[in-house]
């Protein structure tokens, strides 16, 4: 043991040592506090890490013990230990790394519930990253043309991971709720702290396109859609459409996409209503195929202003209209920047807006009021290290193509 040349035993021992050291640190000092690891410390830290790897690589050309760290035995042992931690992480319910579990005691003291900020994970992950860096440097120092796939895969992963870790301290992520009244320039972070931002948003209009209404049969007692486990529905986008639901033939005789409901005797009726707060209602005729019985009446999903309404078919079954699902939601906004630029734009899911290094995402709205929401919720993200991470990702995609088209040869 510990005699040159090193083998697997030394590799496993190093990983176990790092794991135990991490556990001891976790029990004595709590989770890794990365609050200070942001500009400029993260830049300096990354620089020192790279210099250290460079020195190790340079010295390793003469010293066998250092060369072991850029070999396959170190690679395999460190990869395996990180997998073990990832499996523990996958089997353990994770809470946000920013949550405070210090008083919780018990299992939470291992840090495994906040794996990515636990000492064992951080130490072993950095160890793997260091080995990856040394492997990359060693191959690059004697680079030949056929190494290009190797270089893209290893250097790409190293660059992406290093930039992702270093950049996590500089990542800013804030929620902003913008309304019609006035521009909003304050955002809330994960810990509910209010921050003033260099970007302000004013909502001009908020729209939801919805999928057509659906009709389903439910069980009156349990409220579950029928047939249980494989519910069926018909899409009713206009008057005249129909279909079969269980043993009923359904026909929509009147379709009101914009409707208001009012109580009439002991039932609810609906009329056209083209204004704020409208809901959807359908007048339905249902004929039972086995006994010819006819049922008719209004069915509506209702909303925050108007009542919901179902059509009772029998003692055990009713027809209902579930809430209409959003197809697309979007906000027309005016964005103001500190420099005095004013921009009009549309922000929707999957189509964020880029302004001054910030990306603005549509994430939510007042779900209680649905399409009549009076505000729209955005997330603003600034990640200055993103281009470096992307460089690594693009290198890895190219490297994966090399792995597929000209795989390494093992005999």
């Amino acid at each position, binding site marked *: 043991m510990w005699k040159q040349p090193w083998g697997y035993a030394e590799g496993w021992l190093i990983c176990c040592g790092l794991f135990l050291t991490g556990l001891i640190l976790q029990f004595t000092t709590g989770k890794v506090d990365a609050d200070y690891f942001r500009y400029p410390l993260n830049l300096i830290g990354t620089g020192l890490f790279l210099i250290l790897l460079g020195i190790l690589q340079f010295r390793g050309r003469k010293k066998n013990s250092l060369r072991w760290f850029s070999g*396959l*035995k170190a*690679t*395999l042992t460190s*990869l*395996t230990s*990180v*997998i073990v931690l*990832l*499996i523990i*992480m*996958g*089997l*353990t*319910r*994770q809470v946000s790394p920013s949550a405070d579990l210090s008083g919780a005691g018990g299992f939470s003291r291992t840090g495994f519930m906040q*794996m*990515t900020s636990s000492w064992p994970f951080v130490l072993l992950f950095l160890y793997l990253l260091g080995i990856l860096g040394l492997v990359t440097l060693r191959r690059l120092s004697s680079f030949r043309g056929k190494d290009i796939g190797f270089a893209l895969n290893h250097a790409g992963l190293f660059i992406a991971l290093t930039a*992702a870790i270093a950049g996590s301290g500089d*990542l800013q*992520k804030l929620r902003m709720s913008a309304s019609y009244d006035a521009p909003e320039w304050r955002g809330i972070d994960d810990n509910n702290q209010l921050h003033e931002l260099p970007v302000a948003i004013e909502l001009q209009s908020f729209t939801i396109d919805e*999928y057509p209404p659906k009709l389903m049969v439910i069980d009156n007692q349990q409220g579950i859609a029928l047939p249980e486990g*494989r*519910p*069926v*529905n018909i*899409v009713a986008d206009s008057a005249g459409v129909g279909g079969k639901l269980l043993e009923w033939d359904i026909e929509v005789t009147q379709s009101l996409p914009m409707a208001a409901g009012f109580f009439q005797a002991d039932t609810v009726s609906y009329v056209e209503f083209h204004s704020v707060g409208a809901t959807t209602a359908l007048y339905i005729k249902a004929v039972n195929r086995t006994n010819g019985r006819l049922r008719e009446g209004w069915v509506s999903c209702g909303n925050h202003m108007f009542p919901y309404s179902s059509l009772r078919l029998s003692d055990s079954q009713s027809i209902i209209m579930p809430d209409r*699902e*959003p*197809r*697309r*939601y979007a906000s027309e906004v005016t964005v103001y920047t500190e420099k005095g630029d004013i921009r009009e734009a549309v922000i*929707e*899911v*999957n*189509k*964020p807006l880029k302004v001054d290094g910030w*990306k603005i*995402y549509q*994430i939510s709205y007042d779900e209680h009021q649905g399409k009549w929401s009076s505000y729209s919720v955005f*997330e603003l*993200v600034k*990640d200055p290290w*993103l281009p470096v*991470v*992307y460089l690594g*990702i693009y290198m*890895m*995609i190219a*490297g*994966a*193509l090399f*792995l*597929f088209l000209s*795989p*390494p040869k*093992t*005999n």
Partner: protein
Amino acid sequence: MTWDHYIYFAAPALVCWIAGAWISFRSNRKSRAILLTVAGLLIFGAYIAGLWISLERPPLRTMGETRLWYSFFLPVAGLITYSRWNYKWILSFSTVMSFVFICINLFKPEIHNKTLMPALQSPWFAPHVIVYMFAYALLGAGALIALYFILPANRRRIDGKLMGLCDNLVYAGTAFLTIGMLFGALWAKEAWGHYWSWDPKETWAAATWLAYLIYIHFRIQKQNQHTAALGIILFGFLLLQICWFGVNYLPSAQGVSIHTYS
């Protein structure tokens, strides 16, 4: 085109694949086996295209829809392997696996919703899932081979040629796994604001990916330990199953994963 029509496409496609597998196994008429497999793929592909058109969205959202692609890509993976390396039993393997997934879709479809939530409406959606399904198919073929040859009765027959096939399947599978994962990261940045958020599905995807990296590095280092190498393939495929649908059932992932299929 709806799921009610599925069997009318799946059955003739299967007949073509079984015939192709039979010919490749029993005779040397390679081109005939390839032609039959391609014909089956065209029939099956026509169904996917028809479903895509009638759903007005790519059929990639539900568990049943991902199984549909898996049933399609298994014979594709088998066909590539057969035409490139001439393993005459690979088409039988891929046909049997495809048959299993077709049966699951026929008897337990879980495939009824036509709607697609806004987060999934992205040009990244189709490439992300299709590339992943292709990777799963290649790695599934690798896992079947590993399972067969790791049995004590069959271990004597492991040779360099067989391990070469496993290597090739894992290289290609890992390449597509990598691309699928990175497409997912690029998409996540556009949809959710960050490229990696340690969602349970992402955690298991990372573990799966690392397991196949271990196989690749292990094969370079320990070329004679064939059984252990096959064991790593099976371990990787186990992690892949957890990532694909196991997370839907894991208590640790209930209610927190944004990657849930409906």
